[in-house]
């Protein structure tokens, strides 16, 4: 992985080998998982009980929409996916390598997270790394 790339979001972390993952927080009191860093729990209100967790790189498609009209300058169509990750947490991201066609998308389909240069999806993304999802072929047999 090219560690020269800067994170495109505040919740991307690189491990010591330069491998990226998404950073989450888990409440030690109620176990709620949040994307990114939190100081206090938005679910139960517990103070200073949030522990950082590395979010899983696999999950299942909970929901999506196919975006045909977006803000000026944004390339369309694209699939905006909501993914429930293994071990907790829900993340939004673009689902790639599938036709943007409802017939190709199935609720609950396995997906895996990949990291690529953000320029793939955003003209301003040169030099940045971001997370995306792709269908998880290996996991689809179970």
């Amino acid at each position, binding site marked *: 992985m090219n560690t020269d790339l800067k994170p495109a979001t505040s919740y991307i972390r690189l491990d010591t080998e330069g491998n990226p993952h998404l950073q989450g927080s888990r409440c030690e009191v109620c176990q709620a998982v949040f994307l990114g860093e939190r100081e206090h729990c938005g679910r139960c209100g517990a103070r200073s009980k949030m522990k950082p967790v590395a979010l899983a790189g696999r999950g299942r498609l909970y929901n999506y929409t196919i975006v*045909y009209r977006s*803000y000026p300058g944004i390339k369309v169509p*694209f699939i905006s996916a909501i993914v429930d990750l293994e071990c907790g947490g829900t993340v939004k991201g673009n689902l790639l390598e599938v036709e943007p066609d409802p017939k190709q998308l199935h609720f609950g389909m396995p997906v895996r997270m990949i990291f690529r240069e953000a320029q793939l999806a955003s003209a301003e993304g040169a030099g940045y790394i971001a997370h995306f999802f792709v269908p998880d072929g290996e996991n689809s047999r179970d």
Partner: protein
Amino acid sequence: MTDVYIVGIDMIRFGRYPERTVVQLAADAALLALDDCGLGIHDVQALYSGNIGETMTGQRTLQLIGQTGIPVVNCTNACATGATAFREGWIAIKAGLFDTVLCIGVEKMAPGMIVKKKVGNEPLPAEGLIGSETMPAVFSAVGLEHARKYGTTLEQFAQVSVKNHHHSTFNPKSMYQKETPLEEVLSAEMIAYPNTKLMCSVNVDGAAAAVLMSERRARELGLMGRAVRVRASALASDAWSPRNQVMQDVNTVSRQAAQAAYEMAGLGPEDLQLVELHDCFATAEIVHYENLGLCAEGEGGHLIDSGDTALGGRIPVNVSGGLLSKGHPLGATGIANLYEVATHLRGTAGARQVEGARIGLTHVVGLGSACAVHILEKN
């Protein structure tokens, strides 16, 4: 605590007013509402002004119609802004602070898609990179979640748009008054699957205003004849729900507000004769049928199919034409919905009158989230 009554309420026709300012539109609506009950600005003891796009809108409105020095509160609460301003006025009368207050909702909108302001410290704009955050995308996901759970079809969502556009043909204050048959709705440009362009609300300019009064003052002034009683006013913010951080949850917040309103009124959905709910996108109306208890869980698709929510049906919804056709000037929408229900309770809704309407409910949701529900009763 006193009962609170709407004694005057009105709205300007929603549309495009390039030559008029936000506060001129607010002033127009305020004077219409005052005329509706025969009062003047000197009778008003406080102003609650709802507007998102500008600041100090309430004070600047009074500069146009009478700077009487009364307290002014400016409210912003996304698409629940107007209803929140109305509710603040209701609270003040309930508390016994005032007998007569004015509540205004107003907005001028640029045509086309709302571009969200950047908040927080993210390095790059998220749109198109980390999925989508456009309003059509958010509410398309709301619809597809319902489809995932209950098998709701694209045609059922589209029928909402057919119905509400049909209703608007009877409303002279609607932005559009045009039939949109199912084939036209389905074949319109796809904005975010499953919402086509005709399943998205119209960004327009608009203003609406209400004069609220304590029961004592309304009796003193002989205004009870046309007064509409506010049976319940409820406001909720979004309680935590599992995916709320990345997928807007308009259901939990709506259910909280609806439940609180029904409890306050001592009424249930079976007691209503009409509803104006937040159909910012066609997909939203179906989920809100269930959130407001108009049908059982999972039955929203069947409810639109049954015709029960059309004018003449069991529980007509959005007979004004709704946000989909009447238009959705964000800060004005909440009070415009109250105007619609009050007009039916007064029996003056003309060709779209819901016969025998005694009790009606209004619902708006502002993303982020805020939900306001009001229940009104014919006096």
